[in-house]
């Protein structure tokens, strides 16, 4: 029989008992739970929200955050304004550009049509040539009229209109009647 210690345990039994762990950490949640329970009972008092030692740091932090916010706001607004201006410019400039391009292309067509009329004038019916010339003049006059509406002080357009009116006055009511028969498409 193996010898026993003063408490009646064999050596291997004593060693086995001594080898058992004496400490074990419970879950982290238990600490939080216990602290909350102690706060509810007023044994632990909540930490002060602000200590005098931390006040300057907090103020500096708030100031830095505010400065960051304001600068961010300014940059954002600047980018927003620029984008808005660009958008408006797109809205207003795109139709103008399209209209200018159309004036240019139809003007070229108008000039090409007149050139074709000139080429055909030698062999054509004089009556038809006269009518074609009246249509061309009417178009010329109407174009000058639109230019004056676009730029009332434009001297070239004004002179064209004045000459056209004076010419129409000297040619009499018949010619004027022919001009008004022109239908614009």
């Amino acid at each position, binding site marked *: 029989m193996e010898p026993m210690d003063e408490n009646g345990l064999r050596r291997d039994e004593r060693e086995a008992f001594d080898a058992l*762990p004496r400490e074990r950490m419970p879950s982290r949640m238990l600490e939080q739970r*216990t602290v909350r329970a102690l706060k509810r009972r007023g044994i632990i008092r909540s930490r002060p929200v602000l200590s005098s030692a931390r006040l300057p740091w907090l103020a500096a932090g708030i100031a830095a955050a505010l400065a960051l916010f304001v600068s961010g706001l300014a940059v954002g607004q600047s980018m927003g304004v620029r984008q808005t201006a660009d958008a408006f410019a797109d809205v207003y400039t795109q139709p103008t550009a399209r209209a200018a391009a159309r004036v240019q292309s139809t003007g070229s067509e108008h000039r090409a049509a007149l050139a074709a009329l000139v080429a055909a004038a030698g062999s054509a019916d004089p009556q038809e040539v006269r009518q074609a010339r009246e249509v061309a003049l009417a178009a010329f006059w109407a174009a000058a009229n639109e230019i004056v509406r676009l730029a009332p002080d434009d001297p070239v357009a004004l002179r064209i209109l004045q000459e056209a009116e004076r010419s129409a006055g000297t040619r009499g009511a018949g010619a004027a009647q022919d001009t008004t028969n022109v239908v614009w498409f």
Partner: protein
Amino acid sequence: MGREAHSGVPDRGLAAALLARGDEGAFRELYRRHTPRLFQFVLRLLGGVEVDAEDVVQETWLRATEHLDRFRWESSLSTWLSGIGLNVCRDLWRKRNGRDLDWNASVEPPIPAPRSDERIDLERAIALLPVGYRTVLILHDLEGYTHDEIGERMGIASGTSKSQLSCARRAVRATLNPESRGMDGADG
């Protein structure tokens, strides 16, 4: 104060800070110093049921901090906490069974036998003991209490503590080595 500020402070200083200011950091330091030992102690008493052990640890700290101003520091805080933890365990057993432990039962309570293929270590063998046996065995053989101290703590005679310990050891030996059933060593 952060945790570093409390780390070198003796238990008594931390307790004073908790009592005077309700210092959370002081409590957390006390908790982290003493809870691992307290938790292992009550976990073993409760047969390894962690949920119960956590509840007991929390209740132990609640009771301890409520009565901290009456603690006279004649023993270590750890020992005092263990005593409170033991009382909380007893309250739990009483609540579950509707009565206190029957220390004088003449019939040995049955001890669940391990499966034939189950290798039982000492920890498991202790956990399988009936509550009374287990409590005395833990207090005497692991925590170093004398039979008089156990008797005083548990409200029983020291002779009862001795007989409980004897039965507990016999049961543990039988569980660890089934072939030795019926072979008794000399118990203290």
